[in-house]
């Protein structure tokens, strides 16, 4: 094993300061980064753990009916609080990430900062039109995700909070790759009084996206039948040993219909 420095600040301000070192990397719940370190796919000289910062933990509802989730909140807590705050669709998503060990360590901030093309939260963030709050600014979800593992975050920028508008109805459906349980395709559908959001993860070579055609169709008729004739092109979908681009495109339609049916 190689050596690196490790810091565990107690406040966002201290964390930001600690991250100013060259090659320093923030560590959320470590559910992706630690295995990555073990495989030597990343070798930062310094890790700054965000796990000791209480001010970025917790879930509440603001006066605009948004679920405000601290960036350091673990999936298990999100699953519990989303239910009591009237957002069962997010409970469904968070309660099926990984396994209990992952859900007790992994954080929403870590997931969104990593932006794995198969991560679940980005689909919910896109579908609900969430706002990503960092130590220095607020970023709309539409502007935040930039492709596979790429986001609008700058070096050393920390996600402190995610503000998700609570939909009237929502559901997340994913098709799990049987060995890893990561979604081959996951679709989050959120119905609001004035619009419908559809976020698709796992499918596209460009990362999470909103399926706007389905959003329009569902906006006038929120039913599985409304999207029955729609399809996304296979062009630009991920093709790998788990499934071809055509298969992923097919799954987007199936998972969207199933999510709509589940949200009703």
């Amino acid at each position, binding site marked *: *094993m*190689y050596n690196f420095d490790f810091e565990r600040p107690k406040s966002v301000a201290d964390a930001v300061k600690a991250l100013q070192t060259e090659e320093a990397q923030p560590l959320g719940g470590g559910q992706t980064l630690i295995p990555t370190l073990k495989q*030597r796919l990343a070798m930062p000289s310094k890790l700054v753990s965000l796990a000791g910062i209480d001010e970025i933990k917790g879930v509440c509802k603001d006066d605009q009916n948004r679920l405000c989730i601290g960036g350091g909140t673990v999936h298990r807590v999100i699953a519990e609080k989303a239910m009591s705050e009237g957002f069962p669709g997010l409970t469904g998503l968070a309660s099926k990430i990984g396994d209990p060990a992952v859900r007790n360590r992994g954080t929403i901030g870590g997931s969104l900062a990593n932006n794995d093309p198969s991560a679940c939260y980005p689909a919910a963030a896109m579908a609900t039109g969430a706002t990503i709050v960092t130590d220095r600014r607020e970023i709309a979800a539409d502007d935040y995700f930039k492709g596979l593992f790429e986001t609008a975050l700058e070096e050393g920028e920390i996600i402190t909070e995610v503000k998700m508008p609570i939909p009237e109805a929502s559901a997340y459906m994913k*098709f799990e790759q*049987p*060995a*890893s349980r990561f979604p081959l395709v996951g679709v989050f559908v959120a119905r609001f009084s004035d619009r419908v959001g559809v976020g698709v993860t796992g499918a596209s070579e460009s990362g999470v996206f909103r399926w706007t055609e389905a959003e329009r169709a569902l906006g006038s008729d929120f039913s599985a039948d409304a999207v029955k004739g729609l399809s996304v092109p296979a062009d630009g979908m991920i093709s790998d*040993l788990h*499934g*071809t681009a*055509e*298969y992923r495109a*097919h*799954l987007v339609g*199936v998972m969207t219909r199933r999510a709509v049916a589940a949200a009703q």
Partner: protein
Amino acid sequence: MPDTLDTHVRFGSNSGQPITRRDGRAKVTGGATFAADNSPDSVLHAVYVPATIARGRVTALDTAAAEAHPGVTHVVTPQNRPPLQGDPSDKPTMFSFRFEALQDDTVRYAGQPIALILGETLEAATEGARLLNPRYEIATPRTGLDEAAHYTFDPDAFGKPADTVHGDPEAGHAAAAHSVDVTYETAPQYHNAMETHAVVASWDGDRLSLDMPSQALSMTCAGIAYYFGIPAENVTLRSPYLGGGFGSKAIPTGPYVLAVLAARMTGRPVKMMLTRQQMFGPVGHRGQTRQRLRLGTDAEGRLTVLDHAGLSATSTFDDFIEPAANASQGLYAAGALRSTHSAVRLDVGTPGPMRAPGEASGSAALECAMDEMAETLGMDPLEFRLRNYAETEPGTGKPFSSKALRECYAQGAERFGWADRPLQPGQMRDADGLRVGWGMGTAFFPCPMFMAEANATLRADGTAMVETSAADMGQGAWTALAQIAADSLGLPLDQVEFRAGHSGLPDAGVAGGSGHTATAGSALHAAGGDVIRQLGEIAAADPDSPLHGAGNAGFTARDGRLYVAGDDSRSDAFADILARAGGAEVSGAGSASRAPEAAEAHAMNAHGAVFAEVKVDPDLCQMRVTRLVGAFAAGRIINPRLAESQLYGGMIWGLSFALHEEARHDPARGHIVNADLAGYHVPVNADVHGLDVISVHEDDPYVNALGVKGVGEIGITGTVGAIGNAIWHATGKRVRRFPIRIDDLLGD
């Protein structure tokens, strides 16, 4: 001394009993020591660096960086590798493979060892291996069947299958009223025993001691000895337990020779255990195949010709041609039979025998082609097979030593409910709307015997000890062979100490070809019989024995006593006979091999019938094998529990072959992109919904004195085709490539 249980459990009676595994307690409590559990004092840890490209040359290694890492003691590269006495590029025996042991800087496949690091700890050696940071000159890899020229070859006993023709295939094609001409492909598969390859090697002068998993102890000793210029008897090999072998642990390969070389070079014991990723390269695999099957029948559905041409991939530097087309010999009564093989050299490690080599991939294609032929005829697939049932061996006309295949078909079909199957595909749905399909295939596997020897000793107290260097790969040899030995001695199992898994014991031959129980068991049977014969002579000559003078009548041994044959009133306890003879032990020896006259006069095979139900999600195309029923006739079953377990395992492997296993190569560099058990999918419990095995009774007086055939591999055959055919029956789609992928069913 091999590991033996320090306590004996009372198992009840012997052969035919479903006794639990003798080594089960040791394994589940951690008492069983596998090769890599041995850590002699001052052991060094060896880690080899696998090539990450499939074709090219190593141009640079940061040896200084690796050497500088604390704990790294040696960095071995082609520049400084000490000489071997046997050339790894040679094939000294029929069963040898050519392999890489740092001869030069050429890279011939991904995963090939290109350097070896020795360290005081595993961690230091692993880090040293990483620091080597190899640079390459990369050539375009060839990993697909059409990326290199196809060739034919002269047959050889191992690795180069002969072509076989019976009758006139061209006439058979010309005479056909109905025909199919279909091509199936099977993917490269890699043995993934739970215990990866491992060795602990230590030298004492020119004597070598090895702890390593081996399914062929004496052959392994001879193989290793060759490369180090020492006699085979100078090698002591301990292999009490194996965590699976599947054909890959019979023949020494490069990593083993490098570890042994490192031990000789350093004068210290060396331990090496392959990582899961390293299992995909230098230790053998099942080569990919493409098989063209042309079948013709007369108007009534009788095969006029069964014509099977196989193309198999091998490496650029050695030949192991998966003998897939041979699966079409010996099974169906076709007017003409032809099996031909060709090969293609790819930038992959050399394939080798992997559980049912040839039979598995050949049966997959054959049983699907038979289904397609039945479809063309509008005939039920089972009825079609019965119409072509071979009463004698097709082509040769030899009688079968035994063949209860008709009973397998009948009992399997009855248990499965085959009679209710609609002929047309796409007719069945379950309550959840899933498509349901039923398919079947015939299982078929030869039952070879090799050569084996065994000793048996009856001790003064009436207990016995038997010895043979048998290998328990997890299949239960420790138990089934001990049952045979105890029977041959007329003793309860707990009165017999069974020694195996050590090269110093009489040679038990190879645990392969599904012939270990038949071969080593027959040797044990003979050794026990030798002891009983001697004991009878002692008793008959002893005036104080109740058996005195009864030698002409003959004796039987039962529960530790000798009885006059046919007269239970006259008996004598083993211990009493020996006590009166002065308390000496009686030792016997036995050997076994197939009787040549029996082999000449009969065709010898195990048979079975496998029925599969699959369900396919119409939206997602997800496939689930919801039921598998296999009925098998494999001669005498020594231990029904273990035999059933073997057949379960074979059928699960068939499921894996049909739907899961496939190594995928990166097109640019040629490495296997899914070289781990997350990407290389093998079935888990969630994939196996229903398994049912029927053992069909079969007496065989010709295969060997025990009547044992073998159950190790036959379960794979038949199963792959049954599943492929069931998927067609559910969906109407013929997917002619295994594994069948989820996206193959898209768009219907």
